[in-house]
């Protein structure tokens, strides 16, 4: 019977649960789902990681290629993030070009990477004006169950911190490139951004780390990204308004979580 009720009146179903101070999956409002991180399991990629936040699963793979820098930034390499939400991960998505949601999330991730400055593009320079690295950072979502950005950022750091680039010798006189495959070096990761997603339900209840169902039913979503002790991105695309206290509360709580996630990433790497 509960299942029928849920399918007919999903919002009421949630309200009934929330009135008792608990969520349908058994969590309290301020509890996160367990996080898993596994690094380096895909060796066709130069760096890879799989992050699981509850059911949500994201694989991040980094492929490095060589290219010529732009004339206006001769010392800058490239970092190209793309999030794919294939039809495999949820019945919501159809085959074909990326959905709007995938595009929005890709841009958000690109902004987070840029704002947090976790990678200094100058580090990717091999020879000024001639040769730089281009890192293709591809995220593939395997299971879409809410808070995808959180999982992406965790897997991103896992992949970045384990990625190793070969040593490249460049001879400008002959325009000759030689790659020493044996000698590989880590990429410098300058900071550890950690993202936390909140959902606002019925304009008043704030749920941490929402599942897909909760994201669908809620009236607003807030993503807060912390880089060590600094706030580096707050993303709130419309939805129900939050008071200043609520917002500060969310920011405070995501700050607390930063340390935990950092420790998790360090242990995995």
């Amino acid at each position: 019977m509960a299942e029928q009720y849920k399918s007919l009146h999903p919002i009421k179903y949630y309200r009934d649960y929330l009135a008792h101070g608990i969520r349908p999956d058994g969590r309290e409002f301020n509890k996160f789902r367990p996080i898993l991180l596994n690094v380096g399991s895909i060796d066709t990629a130069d760096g890879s990681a799989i992050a699981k936040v509850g059911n949500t699963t994201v694989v991040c793979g980094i492929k490095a290629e060589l290219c010529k820098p732009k004339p206006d930034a001769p010392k800058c390499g490239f970092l190209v993030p793309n999030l794919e939400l294939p039809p495999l991960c949820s019945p919501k998505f159809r085959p074909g070009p990326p959905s709007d949601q995938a595009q929005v999330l890709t841009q958000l991730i690109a902004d987070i990477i840029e704002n947090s400055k976790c990678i200094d593009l100058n580090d990717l320079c091999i020879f000024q004006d001639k040769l730089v690295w281009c890192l293709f950072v591809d995220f593939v979502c395997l299971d879409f169950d809410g808070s995808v950005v959180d999982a992406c950022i965790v897997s991103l750091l896992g992949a970045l911190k384990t990625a190793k680039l070969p040593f490249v010798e460049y001879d400008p006189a002959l325009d000759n490139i030689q790659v020493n495959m044996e000698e590989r070096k880590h990429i410098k990761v300058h900071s550890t951004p950690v993202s936390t997603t909140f959902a606002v339900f019925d304009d008043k209840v704030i749920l941490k780390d929402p599942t897909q169902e909760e994201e669908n039913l809620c009236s607003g979503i807030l993503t807060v990204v912390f880089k060590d002790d600094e706030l580096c991105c707050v993303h709130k695309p419309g939805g129900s308004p939050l008071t200043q206290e609520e917002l500060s509360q969310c920011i405070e709580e995501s700050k607390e979580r930063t340390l935990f996630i950092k420790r998790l990433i360090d242990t995995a790497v």
Partner: protein
Amino acid sequence: MPVDHKRINGPDETYPYSLYAKTNKQSLNEKHEDIKRTGQRSDSRTFLEHRKIFIKTGVVSQAKGSAYIELENTKVIVSVFDPREIPNRPDYSLKGEIYCEFKYAPFSCNKRRLHIQDTEEKQYSAIMKQALESTVCSHEFPNFQVDIYAMVLHNDGSCLSAAITAAGLALAHAGVPMYDIITSVSLGIQQDNLFIDPTNEEQSICLYPRTLDTDHGNVIISKLHMHNQISQFYQSGNISLEKINEAIGILDKTCEELVPVIQKYLVKHVIRNLKDREAK
């Protein structure tokens, strides 16, 4: 090429660094010579030995059925969804359809794959559909379509056969009516060497003839276990009739060897489900 405005594009031209590798790598021909001489495959399997297979269902919580398969380094994930209306079809049909999509993750191969399905992936999707069509009872869901998506996370050869085996398992997990359990195995041929379940390297060895008119190629078959039927057969390259007959015999046997693994897993799965239900 037109610019893809829906993704973040990198610089126009990039090259994989392995093109400029310093250490002279063994050519594929030399590798084949080595294998011929020692009679050993690079992962010390015998020629007719299948890799160890690891399977798991229920990996995608949002899907009706899903399966993950690992043949050592080859990792494929498949999900199956509830029947839905066939898009763009005005007439009524008594039979349902299946839709298959096979995709490599961008980082799964040695060379980076693009996001858009290329011709190889399209071809593999078609083969997958062919293989699975004959095992799904399509008359049970007239006018509807069951979606099957496969994603290769790590390619180390035999991806397509792994995807078909996993898709069969995912369909069973989803409770889609099926005529039979389906298993699929690949085989690579180069001269007198047959490689069951080839790795990526072995597949490339088998891709080109070493001298004119020698046997070479890759063969994939999918088999319905109980009815002893081959539901799909795909061959590329140039293989003599005798060789192909031999190959089919071997593939057939290897397909049978995989069946108990799938059966055992499914039985365990059913028992677990029934216990869960009782607990409730």
